């Protein structure tokens, strides 16, 4: 992001003034192609493209005089529409020059590149640099500014998306020499093409073109054409650009961040736009959090699941130990079921009032599938054929200090046993190991004014390895009125889970 600022300023002012110089520098650029290995590949592909890029920007906004170019730009412009998405990105991403190679990897980026390449191909691959200088001649200030500045500026954007941002400084310089380097990289020409449509148009000052090109970005561009939009929009623009171009780590991380941002918004009470079901689950929000879930599940906690096939079809009660300073085991168990057993109805987990009615946290977990622990809710969920996840230890399970890790608290009043007897559904005991090490509860900070029983003092969730083991389903037969029987079964389930915990921990 920081890079983004410099390119704008540098690119704009310097470009305008330096543009003519840049043209000469451009020729040098082709010589430099080896700059980045990554960039090279792209550059080679794009080498032909650069000429086209200059032509496009020029013809539309400013350059009417150039006869051949207009034809090129026109075709480009339609394509430019796609690039436009990227174009918004360009303003923020000055540093992102490197990413172009990545863009090649990223599917969206590739599309853009290929399209550009094709465009470029249409016109014979002249030297991009040469074309650039021509434009300035056509229009001394504005035109030159458009072609020259656009390449550097836009390039940085894609780069922002990509991890490599080092090239950015060059474009930032905005000096003709620097520009030449960019062109040399080959990546620059491509970028230029992509970026130019979006950027060039604003510079050109033709409102119609701007609107066409930048649907969403148009606003920032229009507001301050030279500055490429307000600083506030810079972040969001870069973010979006990054998302499109993103690849490898960047994409899932950004997706996860987007999901988290949505979740935070919803949790604070600003709402998400998705519809919710009767239980309050927001499917759209849940799926936008899936990248985060995948990351936690596969990479961070490296969850291993055993015996998920033992969960029977139809309604059942899944009983697990509750642990960790934050009630993350509910969502993770829910997520594990979702991934391992796609054939089951979507499970829901029951949450005690202390958590369910906690501000922010309560709304958040409700939107991703938590239901308040209440017998009527459980019955209704089972009637919907859903597996119901319960943590009979309740709040005691997650409020025990780390020194008591994995020591099971009392299993409530055996409500889940009565429920299983009444609804005639099986019970599946589950042991979860890893939550205590991930989120050790070190101390409790009083937080009455926040509406919370306490704030947990804990490190940020640590990447401990999680293991989830499902036991065989237990089918009970008896009367829910027979409280002694309920007690016995409650103890049996508790012992089963304790045994699984012990064996998991012994490994």
């Amino acid at each position, binding site marked *: 992001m920081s890079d983004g600022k410099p390119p704008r300023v540098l690119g704009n002012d310097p470009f305008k003034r330096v543009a003519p110089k840049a043209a000469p520098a451009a020729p040098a650029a082709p010589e430099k192609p080896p700059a980045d290995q990554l960039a090279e590949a792209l550059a080679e592909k794009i080498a032909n493209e650069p000429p086209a890029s200059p032509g496009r920007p020029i013809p539309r906004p400013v350059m009417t005089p150039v006869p051949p170019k207009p034809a090129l730009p026109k075709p480009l412009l339609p394509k430019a529409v796609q690039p436009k998405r990227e174009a918004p990105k360009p303003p923020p991403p000055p540093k992102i020059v490197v990413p172009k190679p990545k863009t090649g990897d990223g599917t969206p980026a590739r599309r853009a590149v290929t399209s550009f390449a094709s465009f470029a191909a249409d016109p014979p691959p002249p030297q991009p640099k040469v074309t650039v200088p021509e434009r300035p001649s056509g229009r001394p200030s504005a035109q030159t500014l458009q072609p020259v500045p656009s390449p550097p500026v836009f390039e940085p954007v894609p780069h922002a998306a990509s991890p490599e941002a080092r090239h950015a400084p060059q474009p930032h310089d905005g000096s003709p020499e620097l520009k030449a380097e960019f062109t040399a990289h080959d990546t620059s020409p491509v970028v230029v093409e992509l970026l130019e449509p979006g950027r060039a148009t604003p510079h050109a000052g033709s409102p119609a073109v701007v609107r066409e090109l930048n649907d969403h970005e148009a606003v920032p561009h229009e507001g301050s054409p030279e500055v490429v939009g307000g600083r506030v929009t810079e972040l969001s623009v870069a973010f979006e650009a990054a998302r499109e171009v993103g690849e490898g780590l960047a994409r899932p991380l950004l997706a996860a961040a987007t999901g988290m941002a949505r979740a935070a918004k*919803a*949790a*604070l*009470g*600003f*709402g998400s*736009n998705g*519809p*919710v*079901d*009767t*239980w*309050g689950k*927001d499917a759209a929000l849940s799926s936008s959090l899936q990248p985060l879930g995948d990351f936690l599940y596969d990479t961070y906690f490296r969850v291993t699941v055993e015996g998920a096939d033992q969960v029977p079809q139809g309604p059942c009660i899944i009983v697990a130990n509750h642990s960790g300073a934050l009630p993350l085991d509910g969502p993770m168990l829910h997520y594990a079921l979702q991934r391992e057993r796609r054939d089951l109805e979507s499970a829901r987990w029951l949450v005690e*009032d202390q958590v369910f*009615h906690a*501000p*922010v946290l*309560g*709304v958040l977990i409700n939107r991703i599938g938590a*239901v*308040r622990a*209440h*017998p*009527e*809710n459980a019955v*209704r969920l089972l009637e919907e054929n859903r597996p119901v996840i319960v943590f009979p230890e309740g709040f005691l399970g997650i409020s025990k200090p780390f020194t008591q890790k994995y020591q099971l608290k009392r299993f409530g009043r055996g409500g889940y046993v009565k429920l299983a007897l009444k609804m005639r559904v099986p019970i599946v005991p589950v042991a979860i190991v890893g939550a205590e090490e991930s989120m050790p509860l070190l101390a409790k900070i009083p937080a009455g004014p926040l*509406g919370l029983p306490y704030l947990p003092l804990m490190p940020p969730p640590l990447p401990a390895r999680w293991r989830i083991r499902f036991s065989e389903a237990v089918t009970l037969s008896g009367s829910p009125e027979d409280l002694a029987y309920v007690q016995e079964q409650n103890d049996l389930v508790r012992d089963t889970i304790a045994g699984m915990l012990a064996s998991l921990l012994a490994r």
Partner: protein
Amino acid sequence: MSRAARKLKVGVTGANSDLGRLLIPRLAADPRVGELVVFDVAKPEGVKATFRRVDLTKVGRDADVSHAFEQEQPEVVYHLAFAGTRVHRADIAHELEVMGSMHVLTAAARAKPERLVVASMTAVYGARAQAPAVLTEDDALHGCPGSRFINDKVEVERQFSAFRDANPRIETVVLRFAPLVGPTSDNPVTRWLRTGVIPTLMGYDPLWQAIHENDAAEALQRALVCPAGVYNVAADGVMPLSGLIRQAGSRGVPLPGPVLRTVVSALESVGRTSVPDALLDYLRYSLVADVSRAPAALGFLPRYSMAEALSSLQEARA
């Protein structure tokens, strides 16, 4: 059965309330209705109906309703005379809601209509931390501690329940409506949703329901012949409060609790519509009524989705 075949004489109290205004034309056009009698303080305009002037809040004239009922002998009585608008003098609201209902029930016990229909609201269940996620008609009515507006409604329902027990031969129908919205509705919720910028409670986003006014009127009309009982009536689906406010064309502004209370009391003192302190629970806890019973009994499904119903609030504003 026999009732379906013959023309009914229908009496309506509170013809000028939101629901009365919507229901009267429907009843007037209903082929099952032979004669329409309106019991109210003012005659509704443009409707062909017999008008009996009755003031349910008038001191010393308690028996007026009884006499009117006795003379008119309606076969079906709709009791809709409730304070729809904000009444700053809580004692008057109480007179109308609770005492007025008492007089109507007393009159009905004497006149013995075949059927008594009353409109209530799902808010009587109360938005509570301890409530199940979905409330059925059998759940207890907890009301809202500290809110006279809600608790008066609960009191009316209690009277009604007692009346049902004491008069088993009179069929009773209670329709508990989710918050009523629509272009012509003017009740505390619609006024609140139309304020444009709505402070809400940060960190909470409870689930709400709503019902379009036309659907509510249709449900009332169908109560003419439906099986006796209590029914929750709400549009399909639920919405978080944030989405509901957005759909209604306003903007929710989540504020931390203490700040919200200050803002609310400031708004109150300026005369702006807001949610009184006593009703903050409705901004905190979900209140979702089970609506599975009504469609079969009333024979209809609400035509407006929740989103459509809320969007209709903007029609009136435009």
